[in-house]
C-alpha cells in the first residue's frame, strides 16, 4: 500500500512541475491578449457619446382663450422655459389680454419642445389621452369652469381637460393654474366643480399664472 502511494506521489510531482510552467505561460498570454483586447475596444468617447437630445421636455406652454362670441378677443397665458426642467433659467410667464365680464371663453393648451422642435400636444391628445389628465386651479377670480363638450373623452369616461370653457363672472385679478398629470392611478373630471382631481400621477406641467385680469 505504501509503495503504491509513493509511486503516485512521484508521478504527480513531475506532472506538477512541467504543468506549472505551461500554466504560467498560458496565464501570461491570456493576460496579454486581454490587455490588447481592452485597448482595442475603446469607443468614441471624445465625442461625449453625442449631443443629448431632450425628447420629453416641454419648453413652451401656451394657454389660449378665445371668446365664444368674438374670435378676435383672445387671452393668452404663455410660459417659456428655454432650457427645460433642470436648466437654471426660470420660465418667463406672460399674460396678454384680459377677460371681459359676462363673456365665455373656450381654452386649449399647446405644449411645445423648442429644443427638439417637437409638438408635444399631439402626444397627449392623440397618442396617449388615457394616460394624461389636466387639472386646473382658479384663485381670486370669479369664474365658472367646465370641461368643454368637445373635450377629449378618455376610455374611463373622464374628460381629458384639453378643451375647456371659462365664464368670467365679475371683475377682479387672480391666478390660474394648469397642471398636466401623467399615469395617474385615479382621475375624476367632476371633482372640484370640474377643475379635476387625481392621485398617483406625476406632473408634466404645473404652472401658475398670476395677474390674470377680468375687466
Amino acid at each position, binding site marked *: *500500500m*505504501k509503495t*503504491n502511494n*509513493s509511486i503516485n*506521489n*512521484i508521478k504527480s510531482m513531475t*506532472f506538477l512541475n512541467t*504543468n*506549472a510552467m505551461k*500554466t*504560467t505561460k498560458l*496565464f501570461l498570454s*491570456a*493576460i496579454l491578449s*486581454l*490587455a490588447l483586447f*481592452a485597448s482595442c475596444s475603446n*469607443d468614441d*468617447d*471624445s465625442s*461625449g*457619446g*453625442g*449631443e*443629448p*437630445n*431632450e*425628447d*420629453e421636455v*416641454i419648453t413652451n*406652454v401656451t394657454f389660449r382663450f378665445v371668446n365664444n362670441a368674438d374670435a378676435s378677443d383672445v387671452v393668452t397665458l404663455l*410660459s417659456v*422655459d*428655454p*432650457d427645460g*426642467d*433642470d*436648466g*437654471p*433659467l*426660470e*420660465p418667463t410667464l406672460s399674460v396678454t389680454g384680459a377677460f371681459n365680464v359676462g363673456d365665455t371663453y373656450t381654452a386649449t393648451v399647446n405644449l411645445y419642445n423648442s429644443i427638439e422642435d417637437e409638438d*408635444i400636444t399631439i*402626444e397627449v391628445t392623440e*397618442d396617449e389621452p388615457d394616460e394624461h389628465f389636466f*387639472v386646473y*386651479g382658479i384663485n381670486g377670480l370669479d369664474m365658472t369652469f367646465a370641461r368643454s363638450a368637445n373635450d377629449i373623452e378618455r376610455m374611463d369616461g373622464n374628460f381629458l381637460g384639453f378643451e375647456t370653457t371659462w365664464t368670467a363672472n365679475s371683475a377682479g385679478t387672480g*391666478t390660474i*393654474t394648469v397642471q398636466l398629470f*401623467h*399615469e395617474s392611478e385615479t382621475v375624476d373630471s367632476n371633482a372640484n366643480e370640474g*377643475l379635476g382631481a387625481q*392621485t398617483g*400621477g*406625476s*406632473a408634466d*406641467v*404645473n*404652472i*401658475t399664472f398670476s395677474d390674470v385680469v377680468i375687466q
Partner: protein
Amino acid sequence: MKYFLTSMMLFIYGFHYAQNCDFTLLGEIKDFHDGTPITAANIYIQELDKYIISDFDGKFKIEELCKGDITLVISHIGCETKTVTISISGDVFKTILLEHHIEQLNEVAVKGSSRVKETKTAQETILKTETLEQYSHLNLGDALKEISGVSSINTGNSIVKPMINGLHSSRLLILNNNVRLQDHEWGVEHAPNIDINSADQISVIKGAGALAYGGDAIGGVIVIKPDRIFKKDSLFGKTIIGGQTNGRGYNLTSTLTKSYENGWFASIQGSFKKNGDFKAPEYQLTNTGLQSESISLRTGKSTFKSGFELFYSYINNEIGILASSHIGNVNDLITAINSQQPAIVRDFSYDIDNPRQEVTHHLFKATYFKRFKNFGKVNLQYDYQNNNRLEFDIRRGDLRNQAALDLTLQTHTLLADVNVDVNLDRKLNFGFLGRFQDNLAPNTGVRRLIPNYEKYDFGAYITSEWQINDDWLVDAGLRYDFNRIDAFKYYQRSRWEERGYDIDFPEFEIPRDDISGSNIFTNPVFDYHNISASVGARYDIDIENHIIGNYSLASRPPNPAELFSDGLHHSAARIELGDLRLDPEIANRVSATYKHSGSKLNIAIDVFYNAINNYMYLRPTGVLQSNRGAFPVWEYKQTNANLFGTDLTISYDFTNQFNWLNKTAFIKGYDEDDQPLIDMPAFSTSNSITYSNKDWYNFSASLKSEWVLEQNEFPDFNFEVDNPTTGELQLLDVSTPPPAYHLLHFYTEANFDLNLKSSLNIAVGINNIFDTSYRNYLNRLRYFADDLGRNITLQLKLNY
C-alpha cells in the same frame, strides 16, 4: 496487484545491487521561508519502513544505503507533509525545504472554515457561512447588518446599500474575490452587484485600515471571499431552496466544487431569486418585485509554491421601484408625504413595470502567484468588470421602453502584490495597482446624469506587521494613489455660465459648431494625488482580553457624481448638481477596541472618532421653477465633518443551551457648524435569546428583538412651496425622521445527517412577527410607504 509488482521490482532491484549497500545520505530540513532548521521532523523511509527524527540543527543521517532510489516522507507539526525521492549512487547531501505555516495557506482540511482576518489592528468582524446562509434570499446589505455598527441605506427593500459607521457608497470598498467592485457605486440607489450566495465568508473592516485594498475607504472595507479550496480529492456542494410569504418569493442556489490532491480545482455556483410585490402590514407595495440571476465559475490550480485561478461571475438584477414613488415635482411629493399611504395600491403581481432598474455585472479575474524561498509570495492579478445599468422611468410614447439612464462602466485592473514573510515577526507587504476605467453613456433622450469619462488610477502601497513580543503587535502602512478623470460632457450653456465655470474653467471648453448653441461641449480633466496611511497596535492583556488601537488617514477624490451630476433626479423629485471645484475629502480616524473572549462571556467594544475634512454631501440650496413645477435644488457641498460613536457586542452563555446576544450601535455626526449630518443612523439595539441543543439534530431557536430609536438629530432641510390648487403655501417636510420602532423576529433550524457525506438543514423564520407598521429613516422610500410586514420564510439546505 500493483503493490505486489512494485515490491517485486524493488526486491529484484535490491537484490541485484546487494553488494553496494554502504552509501550514506546526509539530510538537512529547513523552513521554506527563512531557512531556519526544523528540529524533530519525522522522516519515514519508505523502502526500509523505518522512522528517524531530525536533530536540533534539522539534520539527519541514513547509513548503509544501497544504490537506487529512496523515498522519504517528511512530516512535522504545522507543516505540509512532503514526499521526496532521492537517487542514491554514492554519498549524498540533500537539503529539504518544508513549508512551516500551513495554517495560513488554506491547505489543511479543517472542520468548517478557519477564518483568517484581513487586518490585525483594524476593527474587523467576520461573518461566517452559516450566518450568510440565513440571508440567502436577501442582499449583501441585509446580511452585513448582523455586525454592530453596520446599517444600510435603502431604496425600498431590494436596493440595500451597506453603511459602516454612518458612511456608505463611495466611502466603502467592496472586494469580491479580491476584485474591487466597480459598479457605479456612488449612487444611493445603486446596490452592490453581489450574490450573497457566492460568499463563503465576509470581513467587514471599519475605517481605512486595509490599505492594500485602497486608500479611499473612509467608511470601511468589505471583503467577500468565495469557498476555500482544500488540496484533496473531493467533490462537494450544497443547494439551498427557500420560500418567503411576503412577496411570494422563492430562491434557489447551488454550488458544486471539485478538487484534486494535486491542487487543481473547479467550482460552479449559481443562484436564482424572484419575488413579486412585497406587502406592508396595511397595503401591497405595488411594483416592488425582483428577479435576480447569477452564476460564478472558478478554476485553477493551487500548490504551495505556485498557483493560478480564473474566476468569472455574472449577475443580473431586475428591480421594480415602488410605483407610488414616481413623482413629478415638489407638489406631488407633498401630496405623497401627507397622504400617509401610497397612492398606487394594486393587487399582488410578479410583474415588474417602470420605474425599474436592470443591472448586469460581469467580472473576470485571472490571478497567478508564486512563492520564492527565503523571500515570500508574489501575486499578480488582472481583472475586468463590465457593469451595465439601465434605469427605466415612466416616459411618454415610444420612449417608455427606452431606459432613461443607460451607463456602461468597464474597468481593467492590474495588480501586483508581494508578501515578504521570511521573518514571521516582521512581515512586509507591498504592491502596485494600475487601473483604467471607461464610462459610456449613450443618448437616451434625457440629459445624461453621468457623462462619458475615462479614469486612470495608479496606486502603490507598503504595509508592515511587527510581532514585537508575545503580547504586542504593531502594524503600519502607507499608500499613494494617483487618479485622473478625463470626462466629455455637454453642459447646458445656461448652467455652465450660471455655475461660473466659463470664468473658472475656460480651458475645458471645446468649441463645436455641430451642436446647438444652447449646449456647450467640455472636456474636464482632473488629477488627484492622494496619500493614505495607517498605524495600529494590538496588546494582549491576557489570554482572554486584548485591546486594539488604530489611526488611519484616508483620502478620497470626488467621484463622477459629485463632480458632474447635473439634472433632475426623478425618484427624489430634485435637481442634483455636482461641483467641478470639489477637493478630495481627507479623513482622520482614530479607533479603539476592547475584546474579552471568555468561556461564557464575550464582549467587543468599538469606539471611533472620524474627522473628515472636505466631507462631500448633498444639501438643498433653493427651489428652481420650471414648466413642470418647482424642484428643490440639491448641491454637492463640502464641510468639515466629525463623526463619533460606539458599537457594542455582548454575548453570554447562561447555560450550555441558552445564549443572550446584544448588539448596540450609537453614532453622532456633525458638520463644521455643529449641525447634525443628514442620514445618520439612529441609536439601535438588538437582543436575542437563543436556545440550542447540539445533541438534538443541532437544533436551535432564537427570538430577536430589534429596537430602533427615532433620530432626533437631523438637519432641517424643509421649505415651503405654493399649493397649485389653493394657491396657499404648504410645508415640504423631507427632514423629519419617522418615529422609533420595535420589531420581533423568530428563527429556528435543525440539521439532519442523511448519510456520511450529506446533511439537510431546515430553517424557519418569522420576520416582524407582530406585523408592525414602521418606517425607517434610512429608507429613501419612507416618504411614500411603510416598510415590510410579517414575512415567514422556509429554507432547506442540502450539503453533499
